């Protein structure tokens, strides 16, 4: 096979860029989609996850995942990974603390994020089994799955997160302001129309993320 054939030049606009394959790309192809596409082989249970968490994560995210470690005084602490109230965000009306249990629509997001970004100072150093166990542990302390859970590709893909219905598509613009030029009302005046609560967006919004 000549270089040109390998490059597939006859079929390409520019023939710039080297042809490769899935095996070459595999170490970087780490994304996990909501339907489980991208999950590796492997498994992990809650207890193992608790161990990994204790040695690798707790010193930032707190012993019970309630976070709050503040390396800089007057700044926020490292984020919590759990909360004391497991109610899905869309079901409450108080200042929302978005976190793993109350907010994520898909459990795969948790796997994907830990796989690419954590631990913070040494990312992409966990084994696939460790990641499964951490996900199991974190979902357990968030009261999403039972303590005796064992997660693998199939079971993780099957998890239904509590807040999975808590999202709609972008429905902005969600305000309507008249470009009044003179003698205008301002918010607080009787004559000022504050508008209404925005309607939810629908899946036809062209930028929307819709899982098929």
């Amino acid at each position, binding site marked *: 096979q000549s270089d040109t054939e390998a490059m597939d030049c006859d*079929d390409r606009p520019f023939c710039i860029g080297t042809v490769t394959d899935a095996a070459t790309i595999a170490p970087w192809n780490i994304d996990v989609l909501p339907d489980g596409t991208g999950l590796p082989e492997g498994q992990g249970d809650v207890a193992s996850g608790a161990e990994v968490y204790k040695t690798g994560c707790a010193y930032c995210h707190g012993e019970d995942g309630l976070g709050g470690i503040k390396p800089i005084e007057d700044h926020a602490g490292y984020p919590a990974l759990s909360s004391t109230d497991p109610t899905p965000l869309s079901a409450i009306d108080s200042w929302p603390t978005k976190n793993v249990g109350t*907010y*994520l629509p898909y459990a795969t997001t948790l796997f994907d994020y830990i796989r690419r970004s954590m631990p913070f100072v040494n990312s992409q150093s966990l084994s696939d089994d460790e990641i499964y166990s951490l996900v199991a542990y974190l979902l357990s302390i968030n009261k999403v799955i039972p303590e005796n859970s064992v997660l693998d590709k199939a079971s993780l893909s099957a998890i239904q997160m509590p807040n999975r219905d808590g999202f709609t598509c972008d429905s902005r613009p*969600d305000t309507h302001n008249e470009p009044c030029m003179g003698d205008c009302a301002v918010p607080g005046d009787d004559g000022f129309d504050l508008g209404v609560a925005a309607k939810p967006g629908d899946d036809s919004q062209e930028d929307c993320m819709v899982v098929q």
Partner: protein
Amino acid sequence: TGSALVMTSMVAQAQASDPLPIPQWTKTLGDPVLKNPYGLPSPFEKAIIRRETLAADMPGGYNFPTPHSYWSTTPLQDLRGTITPNGLFYERHHAGVPAVEPSEHRLVVHGLVKRELIFTMDQLRRLPTVSSFHFLECSGNGDMVTEGKFGKNVADIHGLLSCAQWTGVKLSTLLEEAGVEKDKARYVLAEGADSAAMLRTIPFQRAMDECIVVYAQNGENLRPEQGYPVRLLVPGCEGNLNIKWLRRLEVTDNPAFSREETSKYSDLTGPDGMAHKSTLIMEAKSVITFPSGGQELPEAGYYQIRGIAWTGRGKITGVDVSMDGGKNWEPANLTQPVLSKCLTEFTLPWRWDKTSAVLMSRATDETGYVQPFIEQLFTARGKYFLYHNNAIQPWLVQSDGSVVYG
């Protein structure tokens, strides 16, 4: 210099009768050429830098725990025109700035394509280019206001915003080269090479129509803080989507719902706790940069009100300015040319008579959308919304000439 205007006219008046002195720099040779092969600002400009917003100005743990997942602000109140010089471009990182070696860096294009491709930087630089001027803004810009914190000046409140001329290759060029399977493709996932390995989902049509894989910023190669050697640019869309240190583009039929598309960077839609999954576009916004918070007017008389306006939905078509807290408005002048998805400078002459005045600006874009008051955003989205705060910014000019949040 900086933002503080000193009362120079009276001082100058007193000295007006003395013959002008000849300064030392008029009598002796200055620095030779190439003292700085890569030039730097005057030492007298050392106050014009990127900054953090001090915890003292943002109480309550507003600032993030670590300088590696954090930001720094552009001193917009000290800039003119619409270009942000590269050294003052805002930062927002999630694992600090990686020291990427350009000869080692690779960009992979794969997924629903006929051929998976790897590009070196040299290969990317050979492909046909586009150059265009666009702003970048973090969707969290101004989020503290929604939490009842106000900051001191434009940098504190709106400083996660910059603008440059970007050069690179259209993403569609890379996808066509890979033989993208257009009938199946619905999204393109973009991923970074820093240790956060940020992942975002780009809608396929936007990827093909709008996106640029850029490697130059105001003429020179990208700055490390802006993604050296290559980043994604999605004109008009939130900064986080514009993946820095871009290493991988995967054409898929499903979105990722990554952590930065769910836990963070997603917005509550209303009081019921529901949220938007994707809010990519930065809506029309403007801010007066002079007179603005932290600045001071030295005397009564003429001033030029100035500011910047921008929209992710194309061109700004007008900016109105009020000097009485929103009761009456005047259309400001827009510096030409007005470019799409780019900062636009506006100016308006004004005479200050030493009475207090609340100044604000209100942008309109080509869709007819008008920049709202924050109360309208709270009504539409509930009191807990955080991102995409494009509300009108009021400044109170006090009778002593000092300017604070209005």
